[in-house]
């Protein structure tokens, strides 16, 4: 009964490919997030959705597109993968849209672009 789950856990792919990472939360939360942890270990927010509406969209390349089919799911699609996209991607959720709400993180997806 994992609270926030991500698939796949590992993803190895060639430059130029298109890939998707899926995230699901069973906590009944309204808000979901995508974070990227790069080689320098910083965790940086990429996107946030509240009730399927995009509320945070950081400066990320257009090749990254989040999609929220419903409140419990937030998927991340990446087009034309580049070497610099190699990182760990974390999905998270919180009950409501508030920075004082605890965010619950998934286990991460380790993406390696060759």
């Amino acid at each position, binding site marked *: 009964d994992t609270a926030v789950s991500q698939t796949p856990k590992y993803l190895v792919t060639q430059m130029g490919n298109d890939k998707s990472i899926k995230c699901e939360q069973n906590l009944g939360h309204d808000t979901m997030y995508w974070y990227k942890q790069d080689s320098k*270990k*910083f965790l*940086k927010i990429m996107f*946030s959705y509240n009730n399927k509406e995009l509320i*945070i969209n950081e400066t990320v390349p257009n090749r990254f597109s989040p999609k929220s089919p419903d409140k419990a799911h937030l998927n991340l699609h990446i087009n034309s993968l580049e070497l610099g996209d190699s990182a760990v991607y974390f999905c998270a959720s919180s009950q409501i*849209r508030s*920075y004082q709400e605890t965010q619950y*993180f998934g286990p991460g997806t380790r993406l390696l672009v060759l």
Partner: protein
Amino acid sequence: DQQVKQNSPSLSVQEGRISILNCDYTNSMFDYFLWYKKYPAEGPTFLISISSIKDKNEDGRFTVFLNKSAKHLSLHIVPSQPGDSAVYFCAAAGSNYKLTFGKGTLLTVNP
């Protein structure tokens, strides 16, 4: 521009002693601060938080201290246990709904 800095990449302490993890921030608009703990191959988990209207928050063995004038916060773990060995991330937030994380400090508690 690192708005949240954890200048010690690692810290090693003996079991039973105090662990002190430090964090500095530069953005005066931050008014809420959190610590997350992360084990290898897992996502971060929330540990403790503090609002800028307080200077101390305690939860069991964990205490967070906030010094607003110095833009500094610290996490104290007393007594430290081997199971506390993990990466600890400091995070800060303001009204823009975003969490800004530091790079993390790897804490190793030796038995």
